[in-house]
């Protein structure tokens, strides 16, 4: 079930969870605000690695994060982070968890360095360590000379990096990133996503990242959790979700149309591809592959590739997602 989930935690301090232990476990979690139900009997286990938390605005993502940080008591049910109970061990959790809020949260009149050093101390780091780690972390998120200038003059992308840096500076074991790609242009979005992936693979820090865009989380997540109106829709490992589909992509050097005609005659479902020599064929049975092989051999053409295509998560989720909230 849990795949690609082997964070490189072997070199980390003892007493930590085994690398396979879940980062977040939620059981029967319900939270209501008066008549409004933000979360309804949520049961989900999030492994270590990168977990994408997908849902529209108001789906309950922020409420879940507040509960996980120990800042909001659940109405009923239980939640634990890294094996610690959210209702009773909030302080201990917040010592080893980082949080990047969705909203603007940076004062304009201080430099990134000063601000992150301050917040590192607020996380319990001694001053010297706070300074060192701030310099390191700002470099890791891609802020260089500009880190000495007041934050007020930063671009949105730079501000997002500062927000990310403050969530990482105390070397947490888990970071909760709330809509980190919000407000970024496509290039900035890609950079941020790459950075988030590195947090898991290179920094060995587990990540829970929220977004209302499934497509971008699909690329970087090892596991996806979809909630809608406070109800769990799906919790699945990305590898499972993008398992092999029943479609084979075929590319030949020439004679594509003839091959397609042969296959159709044999009863296969064939769809046109991007060019005359490329097409996809429905894998109705082993005989389809044989038919492709025989056809290629008979026509004396060269077979460039036969590739089973993977599903994209967006395709899987589209029917249940699209109508409700495109954005």
């Amino acid at each position, binding site marked *: 079930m849990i795949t690609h989930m082997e964070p490189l935690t072997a070199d980390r301090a003892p007493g930590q969870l085994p690398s396979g232990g879940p980062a977040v476990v939620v059981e029967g979690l319900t939270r209501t605000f008066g008549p409004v139900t933000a979360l309804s009997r949520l049961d989900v286990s999030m492994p270590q690695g990168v977990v994408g938390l997908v849902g529209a605005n108001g789906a309950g993502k922020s409420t879940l994060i507040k509960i996980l940080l120990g*800042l909001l008591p659940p109405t009923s049910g239980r939640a634990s982070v890294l094996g610690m109970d959210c209702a009773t061990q909030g302080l201990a959790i917040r010592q080893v968890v980082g949080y990047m809020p969705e909203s603007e949260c940076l004062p304009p009149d201080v430099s990134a360095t000063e601000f992150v050093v301050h917040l590192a101390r607020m996380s319990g780091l001694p001053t010297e360590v706070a300074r060192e780690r701030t310099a390191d972390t700002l470099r890791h998120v891609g802020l260089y000379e500009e880190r000495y200038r007041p934050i007020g003059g930063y671009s949105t992308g730079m501000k997002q990096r500062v927000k990310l840096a403050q969530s990482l500076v105390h070397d947490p074991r888990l970071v909760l990133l709330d809509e980190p790609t919000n407000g970024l242009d496509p290039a900035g979005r890609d950079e941020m996503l790459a950075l988030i992936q590195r947090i898991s693979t290179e920094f060995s820090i587990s990540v829970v990242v929220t977004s209302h865009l499934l497509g971008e989380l699909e690329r970087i997540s090892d596991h996806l959790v979809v909630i809608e109106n406070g109800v769990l829709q799906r919790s699945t490992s990305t590898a499972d979700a993008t398992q092999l589909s029943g479609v084979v992509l075929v590319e030949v050097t020439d004679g594509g149309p003839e091959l397609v005609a042969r296959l159709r005659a044999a009863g296969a479902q064939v769809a046109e591809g991007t060019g005359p020599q490329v097409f996809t064929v429905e894998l109705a049975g082993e005989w389809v592959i044989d038919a492709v092989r025989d056809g290629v051999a008979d026509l004396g053409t060269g077979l460039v590739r036969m590739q089973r295509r993977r599903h994209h998560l967006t395709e899987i989720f589209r029917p249940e997602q699209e109508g409700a909230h495109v954005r």
Partner: protein
Amino acid sequence: MSADVIHDIGFRHHDGPRLGRAWVVRSLLIETVRGVFGLGRPARSKVMPWALIGILLVPPLVIALSILLTGGNELPVSYTQYPSAMQLVISLFVAGAAPYCVSRDLRNGVMPLYLSRPMMRSDYVLAKLAGLAIALFGVLVATETLLLVGALLAKLPVGEQLAGWGGGLLMVAVLALVLSGISLVIAAFTPRRGLGVAAIITALLVVSGITQMLIAIANEKGYPTLASYLPALDPFALVDGVAVGILGVTPANGLTYPAGALGALVFGSLAVATVGACLAILVRRYRKVGGV
């Protein structure tokens, strides 16, 4: 390409100590005190506090000089009267500092970053209140001490001056707490800085003026007892009343306070209650803000 550089450096983990709430609160308190004086902030943030501190420190020098020249045998303004005499300047100082302490975090949405760290909401409130009170106390102690130095240079009796100075310190400690509490409450409800500054100045100066007026009316209508309790409405007079009641010093601004132990008790309790109420309001206020 910069990404290559990042890749080569590698991420270092922190295996050292992670300090607890006490360290966090202490760090926030120190940060607050530094910020009040504009340290670690842009140059223009330093102008106001230091200009006002300068103004507060000039009169003691003048007073010392005047005693030296005219040969008096006591200070024209006592240690406990001095803060009331400089009410305007002190009010301006607090009005500039309190919004920096809390409005800035509220306005810029920084609270979620504090709340997601190993501290409680009340820790934040306590650190901010203590930070502002300590900064203000520091300023007031400096003026009191300069007054003492001037008095000693003018060869006034040492014992008497030291006693007066001690009483002055006690009084400014209470004053710092009361003023910090009141101004932080106002600032915490006015995220916009300019508004906060104006509101605090208004609260401290206008209330004082209205109180004076009410006292005058009460005296005129023949209610001297009421008139003696009315100063409790004005933070400066309230603390002056505490000093008069406990230390037996001469009141500032020619005010009359209720005589005897009862007066001292009432004014003392009111001062404590003011600080307590401000703290309670702040804690309550911060229970709601900074929704993550």
